[in-house]
């Protein structure tokens, strides 16, 4: 049984989703890699920003 932390779960989710988005939404390998990285950064960045927002709201 696997018990990853919240952040590890976010990283795994972002990694797999970004790979699929990159391959399916762009035509050339170079653009696929760029878009995949862009999605990964947005996934992880959004999770971090929203986490801080919720932390500050809850205080």
């Amino acid at each position, binding site marked *: 049984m*696997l018990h990853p932390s919240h952040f590890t779960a976010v990283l*795994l989710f972002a990694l797999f989703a970004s790979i699929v988005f990159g391959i399916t939404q762009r035509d050339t390998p170079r653009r696929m890699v760029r878009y995949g990285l862009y999605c990964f950064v947005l996934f992880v960045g959004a999770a971090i920003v929203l986490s801080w927002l919720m932390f500050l709201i809850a205080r």
Partner: protein
Amino acid sequence: MGQSDQGFSDLFKGHGLARALPAAFPQPRAPVRYSLKGMANPQDKKAAAASGFVYLPLIAGWLVPGAGHFLLRKWGRGALLALSVLGMFSIGIAMQGKLYAGAHDILEMLGLAGDLGNGLLYVVSRAAGWGADQITVTTGDYGTRFLVVAGLLNVIAAVDAHNLRTGRKT
């Protein structure tokens, strides 16, 4: 000098450049001819791609992650897609995620629709009794989302294989 060259020189009559032009800009001796015979063009490629059973990559890609791209000999893309969907599904199962079985309310119905996107993975997992019936641990909730999203990503990948087959995407 051809007729077109003569016309070109006429433009510079009276400017003293007409005699200097041929030396400064050597003209081709014979006109260049092009033939499109035997060369591929987008319309021919699209017509060839659309022939046959175009839904095979879509169905294969849905049933087995990455199979649609493998059928089209896109080995690298297929391997990465299969790795992503299988990885996400396996992690979801390992986190004791719930596989939706019934459709009692709207949320369960949506979850079932997402899970069904996994194709044969869903059938095999249900038959083997993998996953949890009820969520009992915190990570089980994440696991459930991983299973649903793996199915949705698999559907996106299968549609991409279909687009490659029809020539809509290269």
